């Protein structure tokens, strides 16, 4: 340790004073808090020595009655006042939840508000408020254990969290009175925990994170202390909960009994399923004995049956692994470290399958439940300015493409997924009508071609565009994504300087299920997408060609064409117009080809005569669909 540390401006204001900082893993099932003490990252325990805080909040008439283990134990007896897995709700609208939260044990207040509120005896609570209770508990634990206030924290979020979910997480922290240094992606935190940044050599890392409710795979590159996320993929409604559910389904099938609508019984079965799952990590068979009300059954679950139940879940994760590798443009052989994160990676068959897939040993030394919190603590320590010599740097990426709606309901991606953040990208738009004075922008997030299939993040309007001829206005729209992955959109008309700005800070966002659905959809429906897109493009193309042709013909058809030639062209033109009304993009394309073919002589005569440029580019337009390369 150097005796004298020189700190750079803007970093530690009091270099010798250790600033208290913590890393928080705010998980779907469990949450943890960790800190760096005497250079060692440590997970902090409560007064009973427990490090894991179940992410469960229980309310009664007086407010919050308990958070954590005690709350979880009471969940079966009082399911509606005991909120668990609230992370699945954070950043969601009531609409989202109606669409995706089936099977979740929540009761919502019926209101018109877009912010869903959970009904409890203590009143209606938003997911942000419930999450804030968990954070308060962790903050309290950290202060007790460190003996002072935290200057700031790093909170981890799934790599797939979109803008609204990240914002909602930050709001929860603010509500809990925490200063957030940075939101860090969970897999990145795990790689930091393994100290892979200490390695001499550059390395490529895969982080396989199978938790209670989410699955993520991230490919990271580490080069001289700089972590770079190359790609992330995931299936965010997949995890230990699904395994438990698979066991419950097996129990129901084996017992010929049903849970009906009994939330308490459902919870009871899930608890038993979870226990069986834990037993099977070491034992060849789990004995299950259930007795609750009319439900009376016992049986044994063999490891083999259990592993068969898990097979489809693991297969799904492997599909995501392949996708992440493809996005990173890497072969699985080039992955040098595989980090296992999340309680579900304790299951031997999960480790085995992943190890087989990457053809190498997987890293499991650090407790998979703690590894994320430990990494977050290391990063928090650096951001607090306690380690001015640290060379470590995180370069993170945008998890889902950000774009804007264009003509015909198509998405134009402005920042493709996996672009390094922070990033600012400007795109120029123009007016399409003479004298157009306002312009609406619809900002969306997702991979699909059609706006209706992506997540709407917000709409905003640019007003007061000075009257100009169509195509004269130069509207520059700037997307700025900061280092937390939060988006700001601004737009300015260049010639007049008229500006509009929207900070996207909505009260809802994508559900985990929805993100998963969007990603799966974008693969499964790529075919239909392409077809719809082609149809729309061909229509736009047909319109463009006809307009150009009409303009040209009006000007000089008589000069270059005899009547017969003119007739042929007009017939082909009529044919384009009639196919344009069909749903057959191929027919439109053919008719356009035909029109081009018969117009060729006209085009070349005009070109030769070096007359106006109206028709130029027409021939190309079929191939040059969108790329005017940004």
């Amino acid at each position: 340790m150097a005796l004298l540390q020189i700190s750079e401006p803007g970093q530690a204001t009091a270099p010798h004073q250790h600033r208290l900082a913590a890393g928080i893993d705010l998980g779907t099932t469990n949450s943890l808090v960790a800190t760096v003490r005497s250079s060692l990252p440590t997970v902090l325990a409560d007064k009973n020595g427990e490090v894991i805080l179940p992410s469960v909040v229980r309310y009664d008439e007086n407010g919050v009655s308990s958070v954590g283990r005690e709350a979880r134990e009471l969940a079966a007896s009082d399911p509606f006042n005991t909120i668990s897995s609230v992370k699945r709700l954070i950043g969601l609208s009531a609409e989202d939840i109606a669409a995706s939260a089936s099977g979740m044990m929540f009761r919502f207040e019926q209101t018109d508000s877009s912010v869903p509120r959970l009904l409890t005896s203590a009143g209606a609570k938003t997911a942000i408020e419930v999450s804030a209770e968990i954070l308060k508990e962790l903050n309290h634990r950290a202060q007790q254990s460190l003996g002072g206030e935290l200057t700031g924290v790093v909170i981890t979020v799934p790599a797939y969290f979109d803008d609204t979910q990240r914002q909602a997480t930050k709001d929860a922290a603010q509500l809990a009175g925490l200063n957030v240094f940075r939101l860090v992606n969970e897999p990145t935190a795990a790689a930091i925990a393994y100290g892979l940044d200490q390695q001499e050599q550059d390395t490529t890392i895969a982080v396989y994170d199978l938790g209670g409710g989410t699955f993520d795979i991230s490919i990271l590159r580490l080069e001289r202390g700089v972590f770079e996320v190359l790609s992330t993929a995931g299936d965010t409604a997949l995890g230990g909960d699904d395994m438990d559910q698979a066991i419950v389904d097996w129990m129901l099938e084996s017992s010929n009994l049903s849970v009906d609508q009994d939330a308490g019984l459902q919870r009871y079965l899930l608890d038993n399923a979870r226990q069986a799952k834990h037993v099977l990590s070491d034992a060849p068979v789990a004995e299950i004995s259930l007795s609750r009300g009319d439900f009376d059954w016992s049986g044994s679950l063999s490891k083999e049956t259990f592993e068969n139940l898990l097979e489809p879940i693991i297969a799904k994760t492997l599909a995501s692994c392949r996708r992440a590798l493809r996005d990173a443009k890497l072969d699985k052989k080039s992955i040098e470290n595989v980090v296992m994160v999340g309680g579900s990676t304790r299951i031997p068959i999960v480790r085995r399958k992943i190890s087989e897939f990457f053809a190498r040993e997987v890293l499991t030394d650090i407790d998979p439940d703690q590894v994320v919190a430990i990494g977050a603590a290391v990063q928090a320590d650096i951001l607090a300015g306690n380690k001015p010599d640290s060379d470590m740097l995180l370069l993170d990426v945008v998890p889902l493409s950000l774009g804007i709606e264009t003509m015909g309901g198509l998405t134009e991606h402005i920042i493709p997924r996996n672009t390094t953040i922070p990033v600012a990208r400007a795109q120029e738009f123009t007016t399409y009508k003479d004298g157009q004075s306002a312009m609406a922008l619809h900002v969306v997030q997702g991979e699909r071609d059609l706006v209706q299939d992506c997540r709407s993040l917000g709409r905003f309007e640019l007003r007061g565009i000075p009257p100009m001829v169509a195509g004269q206005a130069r509207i520059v729209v700037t997307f700025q994504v900061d280092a937390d992955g939060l988006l700001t959109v601004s737009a300015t008309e260049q010639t007049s300087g008229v500006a509009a700005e929207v900070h996207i800070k909505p009260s809802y966002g994508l559900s985990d299920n929805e993100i998963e659905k969007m990603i799966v959809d974008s693969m499964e429906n790529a075919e239909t997408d392409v077809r719809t897109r082609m149809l729309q493009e061909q229509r736009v193309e047909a319109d463009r060609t006809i307009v150009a042709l009409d303009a040209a013909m009006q000007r000089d058809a008589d000069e270059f064409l005899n009547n017969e030639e003119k007739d042929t062209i007009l017939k082909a033109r009529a044919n384009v117009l009639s196919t344009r009304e069909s749903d057959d993009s191929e027919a439109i394309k053919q008719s356009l080809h035909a029109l081009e073919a018969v117009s060729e002589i006209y085009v070349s005569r005009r070109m030769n005569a070096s007359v106006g440029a109206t028709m130029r580019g027409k021939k190309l337009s079929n191939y040059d669909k969108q790329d005017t390369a940004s």
Partner: protein
Amino acid sequence: METHSFNLRQNYFELFDLAVASQPDLSELRAKYMVLQRQYHPDKFASADDQQRRQAVQIASFVNQAHQTLSDPLKCAEYCLQLQGVSVDSETDAKMDPMFLMEQMEWREALEDIDSSDSAAFDKLEKLRTDIDASTHAIAQQVAAQLESQDTASARDGIRKWQFLSKLYSEAESLEARLDDEAG
């Protein structure tokens, strides 16, 4: 590290202290990118005041954009052309080599014909990609020479062709991804 003196108007080559070239030394670019990231990444300003934090986001965005542009061969060529005062997108001239267009059309048809029912789909895609690659490489070399000699008209035509090829290539890639997913 100071943020207020940073020049956001310098060109990307100046930023990385590299000679203007359409094919810059990527490992040198990478090394200098890392140095700048270490200096200006917002994480280095987590405890700084609001203004410095905002500036850091701006600078890091600029650095990221510059790195992305120069490390992508096509974007880099477009950028070099722009530095010579010519925009690729200017609609002043649209003539395109008919031979090139013919080849494009053939490739496009070949691509459209490939589907998952075709047992040789992956081989056909592989062949198509190899062909596009070879063609791209040849054009890239020409464009580099044209940019070097400031023959902007030819460079622009070359870059346009390159854009076609690049688009076709990414379509081939996404088709491959789709077939891959279908194959499980």
